[in-house]
């Protein structure tokens, strides 16, 4: 959806189509056309484009940073600088409590922060979509039971629940992603369920059922394609929440102790007294990065929502 289609989108399908095209090819062409239309509409939102630009930069940094800064720079035993020294020519963003370059830490921190954010989002959106579609499609007691569970996760305060889970499971990258994923899916489930309910009540679903379509066919061919755009916009917003959550949990000391993330940098800075000696250069860079990335995801998510959510169109 975020990639521009290179070829000219097919404008009017039926007259120009050769008769041997399969229904699947037609559906694919129609989807490509819709994606092209969405992209053209998305491009008009400057917030969305700025957000996308920021994200591309951060993802590029996260992917390519090992090429420019070797991992050995993060090794406490090989640190060369004096602890807590302010920005200088050698260390553009100063050093941390053990003399490592804050710039190197911040750039490397992007990897874990983004990775945990994406992993948690995959888990969260996966659970939320399955629960939402199953509840919306099957209805009756399945729906009530699933929504009861969803409401429970909605009502329980997020951070205490996440703290309890993370403490019990132990600190590691996978556990943090799992904890954030398992505590953040109910919103998605509610949105998806509402849309699945709306689609299920349409006449063409009844028609498909009359023609002998099973549940699997109905879900995969009719409900899913209608729900995916909503899930997509929602996913981008969830990444923002997940990255903020990772930061909070890592700040409380529940992050992976062997890896540097922006949250764990803030944790180390705070517990080593960077605030009381006024070492702003250690505290500001990770915070600004979080702010930029979360803001960028929010802007992209809202721009996507405006394009993909029919209810918001025309506002």
């Amino acid at each position, binding site marked *: 959806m975020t990639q521009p289609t290179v070829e000219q989108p097919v404008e009017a399908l039926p007259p120009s189509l050769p008769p041997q095209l399969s229904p699947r090819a037609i559906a694919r062409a129609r989807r490509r056309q819709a994606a092209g239309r969405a992209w053209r509409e998305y491009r008009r939102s400057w917030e969305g484009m700025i957000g996308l630009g920021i994200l591309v930069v951060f993802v590029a940094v996260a992917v390519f940073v090992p090429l420019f800064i070797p991992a050995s720079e993060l090794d406490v035993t090989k640190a060369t600088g004096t602890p807590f020294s302010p920005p200088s020519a050698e260390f553009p963003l100063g050093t941390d409590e053990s003399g490592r370059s804050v710039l190197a830490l911040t750039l490397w921190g992007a990897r874990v922060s983004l990775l945990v954010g994406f992993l948690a989002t995959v888990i969260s959106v996966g659970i939320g979509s399955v629960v939402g579609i199953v509840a919306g499609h099957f209805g009756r007691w399945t729906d009530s039971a699933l929504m009861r569970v969803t409401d429970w996760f909605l009502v329980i*305060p997020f951070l*205490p629940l996440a703290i309890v889970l993370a403490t019990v499971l132990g600190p590691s990258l996978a556990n943090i992603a799992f904890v954030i994923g398992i505590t953040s899916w109910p919103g998605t489930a509610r949105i998806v369920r509402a849309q699945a309910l709306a689609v299920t009540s349409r006449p063409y679903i009844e028609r498909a059922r009359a023609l002998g379509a099973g549940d699997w066919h109905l879900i995969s061919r009719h409900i899913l394609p209608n729900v995916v755009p909503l899930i997509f916009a929602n996913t981008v917003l969830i990444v923002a929440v997940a990255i903020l959550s990772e930061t909070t949990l890592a700040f409380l000391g529940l992050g992976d102790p062997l890896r540097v993330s922006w949250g764990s940098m803030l944790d180390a800075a705070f517990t080593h007294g960077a605030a009381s000696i006024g070492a702003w250069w250690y505290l500001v860079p990770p915070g600004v990065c979080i702010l930029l990335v979360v803001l960028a995801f929010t802007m992209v998510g809202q721009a996507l929502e405006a394009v993909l959510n029919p209810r918001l169109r025309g506002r």
Partner: protein
Amino acid sequence: MATAASRSFTLTIGQRRLGAKLIGAVLSLAFVLVFNFFLFRVLPGDPAKNLTRNRLVPAEQVQVLRASFGLDKPLPQQFATYVCDTLSGDLGISYKFRRPVSEVIAERIWPTVLLLGLSTLLSTAIGLWVGIRGAWQRGSVFDRLSLGASLALYAMPEFWLGILLLIAFGVGVGSFPGMFPTGGMSSPDTDMTSWAGVVDVARHLFLPCLTLTLAYIAEYALVMRSSLLDELGEEYLTTARAKGLRDALVLRRHAVPNALLPTTTLIFLNLGFVVSGAITIETVYSWPGLGLLSYEALRTPDYPLLEGVFLLFSAAVILANVLADLLYAYLDPRVRAG
């Protein structure tokens, strides 16, 4: 006109609604109990083993320890004991403080209530005002600035904001001295009952309260703005204007009361989010409330204490949700009628 008969009818509907909500809340709480029980007793393995980890303890002693925890009993019986204990207020003994969890929690409640109460009041008042003004003058400089600031505040971790404020106003930057204390709730040698003691607590309260207020304003302003924008498209406002009402009156008497409805309930529903802020901000300013207590518990890790705090937070938020529902039913005549 509500006759006596119709009033008693609405009362029964209200009672039925209340009943359903209360049953839902009790179910949620029961779920929290089950969750707590299994999470802390089944997942982290044997508490007796956890306590004796890295120590050479004879097997018989471990057995005695297990018996003292009731771990030698079958699981359903353990669960029954756990529920009875919890309901009677016995939350176990804290590993860290070596005192009953309920006692430790009880002395930490009031600082948190003070901090959260004050910052919720302030952020609601300011947030609503900003949201109303922004929506009423949509697209103005004020609107765009406040929208940008709200989004930025929303995107930053609140504890980071807290640390920055701590450096700026507590520690001091360069020749600019710190004006406020950097942590705690009071200076060591002040008499809490005197006027000087009150001032001292207020000075300690200022920075954490400012941080939380700033962190919460964003959401209230955004919700109030969008909810008022929804109302502004309605036709009854055109009618009100056609009657000859001045703009300020149209806003105050017609648009705002309707737009306040979703926002009021949000204030209650938001308690879960407010609680999360308390945990990190109390940690940053070492404010001696439940948030700092949870931090101390998770760093130890002190499982009984963590469990107790989680139970209390969950119960508070579930209760706030019931209150939000009741309030909504009271405020919205459509819901009140059935």
